């Protein structure tokens, strides 16, 4: 009776709008220097999707737009364009398209791209974005949360684990106030494709990401940068299917036990 409200294109539109808010703040901050990178990322993402949808005889998917926007948001200033192009192509093709596109793989292409960038090239500077971007990311995160596109369980689990563990750091919770971290939490860690998809699993996935983040950031002094965030998102998304499986096993065991008990009484 009720038609599904979210289809793939509407999801893409909403997420792209969500990513556009902090991106606008970022462009206002850095000026036009970001525009060539943005154009390149969008063109690459759409070309790869067109190639694969053609090869597989499927309708064109547009989720690459979100991938490109989030990639440009997170990639540090001063990374040469060819390195960005190579990393983004690697992430889109090997992180998403070879599995059949968005929703059929288990990784977020932006996480794969940025991992490739950070592992492959020496001396990638840390991303520094100012307070306006942080605020804008908070706004878009809140909007996506309200729309139900970002799981509040993942966000809460993440905030609890990262917040508690961050108390052991010299800077305390203030270390977590980074635009990179907030954008990654909204678009990468809470990405339904890469995250756990059972409700209990979402809590665990969020908590695991938060704990891994603080673990990877141990030894760095200042506000948490790109490297620990991406490593945590990557590792946590690899564990997401296992977390879900564990939750499902536990659920079946509980149900089986309930059945037996019910049998005795009734």
């Amino acid at each position: 009776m009720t038609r599904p409200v979210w289809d793939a294109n509407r999801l893409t539109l909403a997420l792209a709008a969500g990513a556009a808010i902090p991106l606008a703040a970022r462009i206002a901050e850095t000026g036009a220097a970001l525009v060539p990178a943005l154009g390149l990322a969008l063109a690459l993402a759409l070309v790869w999707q067109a190639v694969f949808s053609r090869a597989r005889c499927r309708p064109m998917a547009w989720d690459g737009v979100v991938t490109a926007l989030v990639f440009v948001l997170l990639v540090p200033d001063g990374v040469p364009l060819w390195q960005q192009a190579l990393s983004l192509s690697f992430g889109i093709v090997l992180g998403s398209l070879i599995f059949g596109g968005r929703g059929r793989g288990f990784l977020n292409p932006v996480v794969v791209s940025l991992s490739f960038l950070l592992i492959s090239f020496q001396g990638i500077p840390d991303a520094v974005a100012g307070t306006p971007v942080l605020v804008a990311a908070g706004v878009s995160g809140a909007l996506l949360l309200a729309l139900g596109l970002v799981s509040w369980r993942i966000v809460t689990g993440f905030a609890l684990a990262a917040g508690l563990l961050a108390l052991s750091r010299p800077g305390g919770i203030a270390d977590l106030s980074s635009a990179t971290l907030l954008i990654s939490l909204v678009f990468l860690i809470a990405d339904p494709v890469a995250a756990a998809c059972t409700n209990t699993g979402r809590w665990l996935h969020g908590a695991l990401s938060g704990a891994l983040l603080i673990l990877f950031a141990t030894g760095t002094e200042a506000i948490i940068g790109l490297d620990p965030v991406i490593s945590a998102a990557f590792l946590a998304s690899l564990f997401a299917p296992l977390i879900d499986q564990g939750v499902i096993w536990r659920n079946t065991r509980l149900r089986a036990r309930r059945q037996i008990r019910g049998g005795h009484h009734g």
Partner: protein
Amino acid sequence: MASSLLRHLTAPIIDNNPITLQILGICSALAVTTSLSTALTMSAALVTVLAGASTAISLIRRHLPSSIRLVVQITIIASLVIVADQVLRAFAFEMSQRLSIFVGLIVTNCVVLGRAEAFAMRNPVGPSLLDALGNGLGYSAVLLLIAAIREPLGSGSVFGVPVLPLASEGGWFQPLGFMLLAPSAFVLIGLLIWIIRTLRPEQVEVNDYPFQGTDGGARR
């Protein structure tokens, strides 16, 4: 007859490649392909051991009680591996250091035991030797191909000779650190398998878990 004999030699190079079709010997393929020279040495060592082991096992196949056959096979393979390792240490010490334990680990290389068990135990010496050489060449071809991609991209050199001017020494080439890590070989072997199976669809495996459509029918 001659052509069917020759088939033992040529089939494993692409049609029945130990790495890309049988998915054997992956561990060493990841480990030694950071440079062409290690890949070449490893290939030579493996071809030697594989040919020796298959010939020896094929020679004694009628005298081998099946209850202890694996023990005997491993003993023969291990002896040959020790010889190969010692020869490398004696004549190419530096190379044996770079290959570290991977020559020794040929003992556990699935290609060697796999061919002994699957082919040499049931076939005469001639075909066994050809099959061993063919599989060795198939393994070597993949190793050299992967190394030929990883070494130039990862360190800007071919057989240790710099060919691309490194950015750290004033050139333009920025090496890809990813290519020096084992996962890159995984990705490259995966892409290679993809290419081969696109060109030869008969290699594609049956889908164990076909997608169940909403109409209840299974699709490939």
